[in-house]
């Protein structure tokens, strides 16, 4: 038996991973979530803003990390819309434009009273990374003459008198790398004292911890935090319980749980093999 595992073909592991994750996806198993203090901090930061505050939503990610980050962007969008905040979407990533579109679809379908140009605007993408942040914090229209559809910003009520983003009440960044949360902290939130929260991937979260709590009010790290955030949102706005789309992250925790358990099992099995081999070597 042990000999079989010692020379285990990795394709068996691939198959096992496929089966457990597929089973969890197909059964749509969900687990109760207990939001952590960090998640509650992020939630409160948005919730405590007066209704109708200006929020910059910077969505800096691409389809590769959409699975992990879109539920966060969706939850932020829903919460901001519930609070009737004015939303300014922007991205520093070229493939981020369709990602913004996902959030805008939520506004169009679930918050039909939200009007483009009056309640939200999509500034789209500009090349330049940190350079873009530097410019939008001082002179937005120098770089953004028009929105994503080519409409002049002076013709849009929400941006007509907007000189720069310094007057934003909050920056919400959902980012998968660079440029992303770190750059928004360094070039916008810190120099101009703008409140900021961030959502990021599992591997992207640890380097952001040093910015908490002074430069970042809080971060959501990976799908677990997104799931807890959805839970907090559901507790505050129970009407969202009927909306399956508002529970995307919670649905994804099932596959994550079984994948993690399988990994733990494999690590234990690998170590059992390792120690049995060592014992055999010593006895010889």
């Amino acid at each position, binding site marked *: 038996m042990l000999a079989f595992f010692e020379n*285990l073909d*990795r394709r068996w*592991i*691939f198959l*096992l*991973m*496929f089966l457990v*994750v597929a089973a969890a996806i197909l059964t749509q198993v969900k*687990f*109760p*979530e*207990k939001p*952590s*203090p*960090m998640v509650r901090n992020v939630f409160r930061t948005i919730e405590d803003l007066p209704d109708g505050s200006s929020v910059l939503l910077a969505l800096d990610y691409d*389809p*590769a*990390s*959409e*699975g992990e980050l879109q539920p966060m962007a969706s939850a932020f969008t829903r919460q901001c819309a519930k609070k009737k905040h004015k939303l300014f979407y922007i991205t520093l990533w070229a*493939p981020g*434009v*369709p990602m913004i579109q996902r959030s805008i679809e939520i506004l169009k379908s679930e918050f039909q009273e939200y009007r483009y140009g009056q309640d939200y605007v999509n500034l789209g993408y*500009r*090349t*330049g*990374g940190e*350079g873009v942040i*530097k*410019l939008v914090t*001082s*002179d937005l229209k*120098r*770089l953004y003459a028009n929105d*994503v*559809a*080519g*409409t002049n910003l002076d013709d849009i009520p929400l941006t007509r008198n907007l000189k720069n983003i310094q007057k934003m009440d909050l920056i919400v960044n959902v980012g998968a790398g660079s440029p992303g949360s770190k750059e928004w902290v360094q070039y916008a939130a810190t120099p101009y004292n703008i409140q900021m929260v961030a959502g990021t991937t599992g591997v992207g979260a*640890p*380097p952001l*911890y*040093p910015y908490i709590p002074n430069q970042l009010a809080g971060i959501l*790290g*990976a799908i*677990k935090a997104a799931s807890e955030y959805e839970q907090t949102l559901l507790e505050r706005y129970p009407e969202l319980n009927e909306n399956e789309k508002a529970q995307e992250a919670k649905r994804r*925790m099932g596959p*994550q*749980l079984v*994948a*993690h*358990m*399988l*990994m*733990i099992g*494999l*690590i234990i*099995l*690998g*170590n059992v093999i*390792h120690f049995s081999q060592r014992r055999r070597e010593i006895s010889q």
Partner: protein
Amino acid sequence: MRRTIPLLISSITGFLLIVAFFIPYTESWGNEVMNWFDIVAAFAFVLGAGSLLKMHLRKVSDRRAGWGYSAVTVLAFLMMLGMGLGKVGVPPSEKFPNHPFSGHYLHEGGAFWWIFQYLFLPLSATMFAMLAFYIASAAFRAFRAKNTEAIILLITAFIVLLGRTYAGEVLTDWLPESLAFLRLERLTEDTIMNVFNLAGNRAIMIGIGLGIVSTSLKVLLGVDRSYLGSE
């Protein structure tokens, strides 16, 4: 001369941005430079595209190993470029119905949108998702308790893997309030992330910051010229 002018441009631009950061009066100078930077960055796309085409077309023409992948790259690149610039399948915008190119390139139903939605998106997601398979295989083969450091890493991995799922709550929720700090989710967040990770990352960040200052000064003063390439 070929090296002196780029050196001067780098030095002047760099020092101007430093001055603009510290002296409010000069902030607009910095903005001007950043505006130029954004325009130059857009030109870099053309340079990048040219370089990509040159490299892959040469590979195809020389029939070097893996030339088929290069052919696919060139084909995909030209196809996306053509679809995007030509706005294939995109109707004119409502605002300018008489201008055929006034629609948005990502208009739902357009060729570019279709390729993004049904090719780029699933391919990107698949590449990212495949990590789970490789990590599982690597965990089985390489994550062995061979020495003290490996054991510490193993214990940390177990805590984080369990603490980041519902399993962590189920396994340690029975602990009394006085021992709540030992619950797996609390250990993950309060101890591993907020103590060890925070301290380590802060030290790395300060180190990187000091490194950036020193390297930037060397570049701005012309001591380090490696970014200009060889003569």
